């Protein structure tokens, strides 16, 4: 690596950990944790509030503070997802798919500590990749185009096959419904309305947050009350809870291959500008379930279902800074607000930032790194006390959870209609659970539909016009191979494992 990059990295590190500058990332971390633990609020809201307040500050404290905002925000939203089935923001939504079932099984401590560990290590991975990519940041951000985005979406959609539970047709139907729900609203190419049934609310389409809150949080509340369960975990006392923080930490290292793959997925998706923050988690989750094998309990409390999306979500933060800093194109909502903050302080992303302001870039990066670790270490130490919430009587928790769900649904866009939408999906989610219809394919399809449709159209059009040749693009071909491999791998793994257990039967 270039000596100047190393020097800038070391100088940035020194500044972050020096007194009194270290106060800024620590304060930013605490604020980000509080915000992201509250449904409907997130680091973007926090940064937006902070921009006018920090207007007259020098660039250094701004970078220290905003780096911490980005880094400190991801994990706490996962805690509410694990404990109460309520995601702090869209990117935490995937964690609840297995995190909440773990709480119901009395293993909340394990889930929270796994999330904390995967979060810290995933963020570290993303930052290492970011630093490694600094010399080629612009090229990396520009290299990915519609064919690559399309293949990522297809790969993500193919992972659905592993998430259909006991019934492939039901899973595929759920995925189809998810795709159709995502098509509701304006068509991006013609600006025409689709499937709005005349409702103004549906002009904007369905948002993932109210849908998730309904399908999972509200549906589980109905199920909880219908089943007469005394507590979330089924245990009356915290001493009866199983699992431990140590189990959670060790699970990341026991599944280190999955952790690395998920972190790569998160970093790559973070680099792609404009993709929603939840996509990384979904694709990592789908990939994890595909490669899980015969012992898969995805959707029913499989620790890998927490590990994969958490690693991907935090690795994504590092990746998302690549297009943000190199091109001034945000990787997601959080980095978009960050970009606004940087520009208002005269820090214009682009070549100049990567040469004249490289030290400040590293201040941002190290501040993000520090806040991620502080959040995760705090999360680890609080895993046990937080897990005790799952032994509180359901009848006392239900009003609190419902209030949080309503606030989360309303705060997302400030529309009461989102609350009604969440309730409608809550009823649907309960019916789906009651009658054995998998919900996960529906939400994955919804999350990936726009990425798939837009880039399918662009890829076909550009191929037709002769402006691209998908068969000569190495990244596209690599992703195609990965997709095929992902489709064939589960079957091959199953056959191999059967062969090992009973060689005669395999023959």
């Amino acid at each position, binding site marked *: 690596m270039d000596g100047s990059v190393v020097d800038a990295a070391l100088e940035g590190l020194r500044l972050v950990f020096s007194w009194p500058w270290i106060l800024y990332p620590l304060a930013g971390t605490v604020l980000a944790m509080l915000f992201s633990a*509250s449904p409907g*609020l997130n680091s973007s*809201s926090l940064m937006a*509030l902070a921009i006018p307040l920090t207007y007259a500050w020098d660039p250094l404290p701004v970078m220290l503070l905003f780096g911490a905002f980005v880094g400190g925000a991801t994990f706490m939203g996962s805690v509410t997802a694990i404990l109460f089935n309520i995601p702090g923001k869209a990117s935490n939504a995937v964690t609840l798919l297995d995190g909440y079932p773990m709480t119901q099984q009395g293993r909340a401590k394990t889930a929270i500590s796994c999330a904390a560990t995967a979060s810290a290590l995933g963020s570290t991975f993303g930052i290492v990749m970011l630093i490694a990519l600094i010399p080629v940041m612009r090229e990396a951000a520009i290299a990915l185009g519609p064919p690559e985005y399309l293949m990522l979406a297809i790969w993500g959609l193919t992972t659905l096959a592993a998430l259909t*539970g*006991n*019934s492939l*047709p039901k899973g*595929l*139907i759920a995925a*189809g*419904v998810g*795709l*159709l729900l995502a*098509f509701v609203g304006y*068509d991006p*190419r*013609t600006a*025409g*309305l*689709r*499937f*709005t*049934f005349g409702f103004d609310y549906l002009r904007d389409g369905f948002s993932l947050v109210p849908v998730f809150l309904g399908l999972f949080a*509200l549906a589980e*509340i*109905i*199920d*909880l*009350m*219908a*089943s*007469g*369960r005394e507590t979330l975990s089924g245990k009356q006392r915290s001493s009866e809870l199983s699992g431990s923080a140590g189990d959670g930490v060790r699970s990341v290292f026991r599944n280190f291959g999955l952790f690395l793959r998920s972190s790569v997925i998160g970093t790559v998706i973070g680099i792609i500008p404009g993709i929603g923050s939840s996509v990384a988690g979904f694709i990592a989750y789908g990939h994890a379930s595909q490669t899980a094998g015969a012992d898969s309990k995805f959707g*029913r409390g499989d620790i890998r279902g927490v590990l994969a999306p958490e690693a991907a979500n935090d690795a994504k933060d590092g990746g998302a800074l690549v297009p943000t800093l190199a091109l001034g194109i945000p990787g997601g909502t959080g980095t978009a607000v960050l970009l606004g903050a940087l520009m208002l302080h005269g820090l214009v992303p682009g070549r100049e930032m990567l040469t004249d302001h490289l030290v400040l870039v590293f201040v941002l990066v190290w501040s993000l790194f520090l806040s991620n670790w502080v959040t995760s270490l705090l999360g680890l130490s609080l895993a046990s006390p937080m897990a005790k919430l799952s032994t509180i009587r359901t*009848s*006392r928790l*239900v*009003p*609190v959870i*419902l*209030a949080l769900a*309503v*606030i989360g649904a*309303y*705060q997302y866009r*400030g529309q009461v209609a989102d*609350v009604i939408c969440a*309730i409608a999906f809550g009823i649907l989610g*309960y*019916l*789906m*659970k*009651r*009658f*054995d*219809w998998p919900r996960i394919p529906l939400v994955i399809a919804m999350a990936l539909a726009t990425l798939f*449709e837009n880039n*399918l*159209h662009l890829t076909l059009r550009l191929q037709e016009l002769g402006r691209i040749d998908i068969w000569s693009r190495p990244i596209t071909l690599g992703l195609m191979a990965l997709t095929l491999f992902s489709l064939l791998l589960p079957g091959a793994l199953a056959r191999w494992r059967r062969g090992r257990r009973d060689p005669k039967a395999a023959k």
Partner: protein
Amino acid sequence: MTLLVAGVLLLFLVQTPRIGLVAGRIPFVVLGLTLILVCWQLVRELVAPQRSSADTVSASHDVVQALRATAWIFVLLLAVLVAGVVPGAGLFCFLFLRFQADESWLFSLVFSIALSAAVYLIFDLFFGASLYSGWLPLP
């Protein structure tokens, strides 16, 4: 449930004439494939009815309780719409604790006031989030 899904898909189908071919190309393909799958699933269920897996269904299901739970969610919605998030959450909490969870009057009152206060302090005062204020012109 399959019939419900089929009904939803038919609603989508009814909308298709309003959508041009350019905007509708991919949705039409997805709708068509999903309808085929639904028909197949309906036939499967008619020919060989399937039982729900015990793993995914709660241990004991009380349909009445499920309906009651749904009704409580609508009570919450009504309370929030009329009184706003802060008072509405507290009102719902009181009614739920007293009449569903059979808690004492005192506990229900104290808990619900505490919940409203916490929501107000945390979201309104600390975060400055603008919470829905409801139809009634409460202070």
